[in-house]
């Protein structure tokens, strides 16, 4: 086995993993604040991917430019979803929330199937075929830029939660829901705002993901599971954990094809998930609940 080849694959895995990480970051932020597991997360990701493909094929908009409109639309959509659908469910038991989001997921994945059909859609851009040379290593240009965007978006989200008054208010709601209410915060508004932010993360990740893979409707449930694996491994509710988990899963997927059969690559991720749940249930970077 050629070490340069392995390094190239691992590097590609890191880049893809950062985009996965951004997607999972959305899930983690939503769970960390609203305490609802978004079982429709991957389905939202595929909707964003289709949005990017449609903007590209109809208006010729580059997916990097599509980020802005898609993320804005997703923020509004996410806000509306939390305010209209999920807020009444936050005091209900987990299985009831699960049912609600499974219903939403079923509607989303099949609506995509009705609109776009089962065939794969993709974005064809010339620069996606180019690569950057880094000594002996080769970097895929599209992947490299996608990973940069994922890092920038994650950094922006970190900064938002750390330095803005709204971000601080949201953290207050997450830490102590009742206390936040007592000091006069509109908790439901901040929950909806958080769901909007999580959705915007998914939107950006989706726009970047179309640069890496073709999109089909069944990708939705797959990404939902993938996002779960990533956030549990990294630590549900931990923002840095989501990125770390994404990179770990990205690298393991890339190398699984080399060391074991490619079809077993997700078996490895689920195995990792089981190990982490049993040995460190709060995740690698999570705090004990």
């Amino acid at each position, binding site marked *: 086995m050629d070490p340069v080849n392995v390094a190239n694959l691992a590097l590609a895995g890191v880049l893809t993993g950062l985009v996965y990480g951004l997607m999972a970051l959305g899930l983690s932020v939503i*769970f960390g604040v609203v305490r609802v*597991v978004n079982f429709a997360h991957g389905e939202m990701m595929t909707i964003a991917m289709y949005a990017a493909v449609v903007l590209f094929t109809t208006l010729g908009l580059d997916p990097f430019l599509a980020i802005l409109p898609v993320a804005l639309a997703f923020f509004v959509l996410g806000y509306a979803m939390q305010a209209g*659908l999920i807020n*009444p469910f936050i005091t*209900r038991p*987990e*299985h*009831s929330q*699960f*049912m*609600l989001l*499974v*219903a*939403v*997921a*079923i*509607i989303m*994945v*099949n*609506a*995509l*199937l*009705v609109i776009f*059909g*089962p065939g794969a859609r993709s974005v064809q851009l010339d620069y996606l075929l180019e690569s950057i040379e880094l000594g002996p290593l080769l970097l895929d240009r599209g992947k490299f830029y996608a990973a940069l965007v994922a890092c920038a978006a994650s950094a922006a989200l970190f900064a938002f939660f750390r330095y803005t008054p709204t971000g601080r208010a949201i953290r207050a709601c997450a830490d102590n829901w009742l206390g936040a209410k007592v000091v006069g915060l509109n908790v439901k508004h901040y929950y909806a705002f958080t769901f909007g932010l999580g959705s915007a993360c998914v939107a950006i990740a989706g726009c970047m993901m179309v640069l890496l893979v073709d999109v089909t*409707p069944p990708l939705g*449930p797959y990404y939902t*599971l993938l996002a*779960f*694996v990533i956030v*549990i491994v990294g630590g*549900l509710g931990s923002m840095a954990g989501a990125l770390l988990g994404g990179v770990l899963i990205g690298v393991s997927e890339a190398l699984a094809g080399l060391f074991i*059969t490619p*079809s*077993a690559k*997700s*078996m490895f991720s*689920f*195995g990792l*998930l*089981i190990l982490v*749940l*049993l*040995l460190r*249930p709060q995740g690698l970077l999570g705090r004990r609940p």
Partner: protein
Amino acid sequence: MRAKILLSILLLVLVFFPTFAGPYALSVATLILFFAYAGQAWNVMMGFAGQLSLGHSLYVGVGAYAAAGLYFHTGLGAWAGIWLAILLCMLLGAAIGFLAFRFGISGVYFALLTIAFAEFTRIGFDHIQWLGGPGGLFIKVEHRTGWDLVNLRGTPAMFYYVMLALCALAFIFCFLLLKSKAGYYWQAIRENEEAAQALGINTFRWKMLAVVISSAMTSVAGVFYAFYYNNLFPEQIFHISRSIEIILGPIIGGIGTLFGPILGAAVLILLSDGITEGLAALGWEFPGVKQVFYGLVLLVVVMFLPRGIWPALARRLGVGK
């Protein structure tokens, strides 16, 4: 009293159903009973003991593969396979329960752990060539005319009655469970685990019991599945959507109730069939349209009937839960 009369009428209708139903109606009824039974099994874990499993397809699949594999390789029929299935699934349930409860995993984390085990097993079975791998395991279709209960080979009506008997047994079994010491302990754990522990209940042991009973019951559904459909694919039987199908019935019908899983399964399958026919009548037969409507109905039910259909219906009928 009223409940007993209504239940007897229902049972009578179900017993004589095959005499006037066509082959299609019979297959739909068998499917309803299948999901009613599997939902009942899941309900023991979630509805009674409050442990949310989202990976029950694991037990259906392992049960099905155990019995079908045994039959395929040794010729031993369902009468032997069922014990292997139950034994394997009890061990599996015990292992998952032990790991989860020992390490204090509960709630969402427990639910995700069950998904992980089911998915892990699904991909694992794709690589077991001895059981057909991704290409599927097919068992011989024979004796389509007689009734061979020991080997589970026979007419569709036989499969219907087998499923009906399983449902009735599960109903009685769950009724007795709820009235037993275990039933009360489970409900205490479901409502408030810390309080139950403070009262001296060994919550670990009782939760384990719920998982083991539930997985054993579910494995029997798997054995039935294997011999009813005669083909198994890891991609289908272990898939998370199969787990969701199992648990939708009890949730829609009424979680923790005895009749909820049965009513829920009937409502969901008739609904799905009704949508198919309605769309065919309208000429809207695009892939996915049916599931969109199905999802919308689920959404409405879960929003407006948070405790399920059965508790609301039971009040109307004037019977207890």
